[in-house]
């Protein structure tokens, strides 16, 4: 009896100590910091990181901002910068034709990657679709500005534009660092690639400097660098049914070093006659893809993740699944129109049960 009591006492004291100390033992551990920026890739950037001090975190953030700013200026299709040749310069038309434009090596590399992804996805991800996407962009913005008069782009207009989307007319000369669009009516839109590609480049840069325990989120392109201090990062996959208040997330993932990207019909859309029309345009139908509510891609490369999430969103399930299974380090989850979820073979190894507090 006595032995039992002293055992009980011991357990109780240890429990008290564990409770008492668990909340305040982080004096020597790195602290978690967050920063938000609004100036890159027309979206919000979140940086989360563990550092010894606010000063150290801020210093790394300044470094990240410099990098993001560099890629933003090079890859934007909307903004011109004095003395800088970027995608706007490549898309420019003088006297009825495009110019041969000398560009930074970073643009050559990104467009070369874009061509690779075109072939890998059987043409589903096509950066030469600018002529078609431009029309959708104009109609979507007009519809958001004036919802009562929102309209769909006329199909004959889209079809005419689609005649000028041949990827082979994008001529990259890697030796001389020049880019030339051979079809005067074509233009580049790197919206499905450049953001993820840039995030990957910035993450590579941080890794090369030995920085770890950071997370970059540029408008939903998430790339983790190492762990969240001593644990893995917790990523919630949003419920595409945004009205479902009970279940905001349909899956929870734990990652350390990977990238997660979701393409969803709920993300950026406008409404015409009560129907939602989102921004992921199928090169075959020239209309927003309707096969899924969302597709999430988990991979070790955010550039591939960005391109693959768009491609899978537009591909038939069987073709998409085959593409995922035949590509190393890529896993995916598809949410079908009825809400049913499909997974690639390795996806569920990353999921965890979320226990409501």
């Amino acid at each position, binding site marked *: 009896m006595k032995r039992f009591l002293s055992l009980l006492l011991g357990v109780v004291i240890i429990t008290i100590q564990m409770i008492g100390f668990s*909340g305040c033992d982080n004096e020597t551990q790195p602290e978690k910091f967050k920063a*938000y920026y*609004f100036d890159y890739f027309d979206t*919000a950037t979140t940086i989360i990181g563990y550092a010894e001090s606010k000063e150290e975190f801020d210093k790394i953030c300044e470094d990240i901002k410099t990098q993001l700013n560099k890629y933003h200026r090079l890859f934007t299709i909307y903004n011109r910068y004095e003395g800088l040749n970027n995608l706007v310069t490549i898309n420019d038309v003088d006297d009825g034709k495009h110019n041969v434009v000398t560009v930074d090596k970073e643009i050559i590399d990104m467009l070369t990657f874009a061509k690779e992804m075109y072939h890998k996805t059987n043409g589903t991800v096509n950066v030469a679709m600018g002529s078609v996407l431009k029309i959708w962009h104009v109609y979507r913005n007009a519809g*958001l500005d004036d919802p009562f008069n929102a309209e769909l782009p006329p199909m004959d207009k889209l079809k005419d534009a689609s005649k000028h989307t041949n990827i082979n007319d994008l001529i990259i000369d890697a030796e001389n660092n020049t880019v030339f669009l051979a079809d005067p009516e074509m233009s580049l839109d790197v919206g499905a690639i450049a953001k993820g590609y840039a995030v990957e480049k910035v993450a590579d840069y941080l890794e090369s400097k030995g920085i770890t325990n950071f997370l970059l989120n540029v408008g939903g392109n998430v790339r983790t660098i190492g762990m969240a201090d001593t644990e893995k990062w917790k*990523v919630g996959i949003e419920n595409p049914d*945004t009205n479902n208040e009970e279940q905001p*997330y349909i899956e929870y993932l734990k990652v350390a070093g990977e990238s997660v990207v979701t393409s969803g019909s709920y993300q950026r859309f406008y409404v015409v006659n009560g129907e939602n029309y989102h921004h992921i345009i199928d090169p075959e139908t020239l209309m927003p893809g309707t096969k899924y509510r969302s597709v999430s891609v988990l991979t070790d490369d955010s550039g591939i993740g960005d391109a693959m999430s768009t491609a899978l969103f537009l591909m038939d399930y069987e073709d998409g699944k085959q593409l995922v299974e035949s590509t190393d380090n890529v896993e995916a989850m598809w949410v079908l129109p009825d809400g049913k979820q499909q997974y690639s073979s390795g996806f569920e190894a990353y999921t965890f049960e979320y226990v409501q507090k």
Partner: protein
Amino acid sequence: MKNNNSQKNQKLRNDIILAVVIVFIAAAGLLLFVLTKQEGSTVAVKIDGVVTDTYPLSENREVSIKTGENDENINILTIKDGKASISEADCPDKICVETRAVSFVGETIVCLPHKIVIEITNEKTDDQIDVAV
């Protein structure tokens, strides 16, 4: 022998009382810890990265967040039933209004045109999720 026995019993009783007291204190401590841990989630309003206001998530309220040089931009933050949302805004894209109400520690609502981030924070717990995609 008899005397010895009753002494033993007395000792045992004291031990039991001591054990009960300690268990009681531990339980009370645990209860207090759990209670303070679950309470105290805060809605932090950040404008261009700087925290301008914080409100308890447990109290219903409506706040008008004004931004821009002459306070010309308006977002209405609504805290209701333990959830925070942007119920109205005069930004061009209205993405913040479309975003669902948040309540998990670490969740955010972003208004890009007005450079506003609404974040659920809690000093006593880890983020429930780090990021949503």
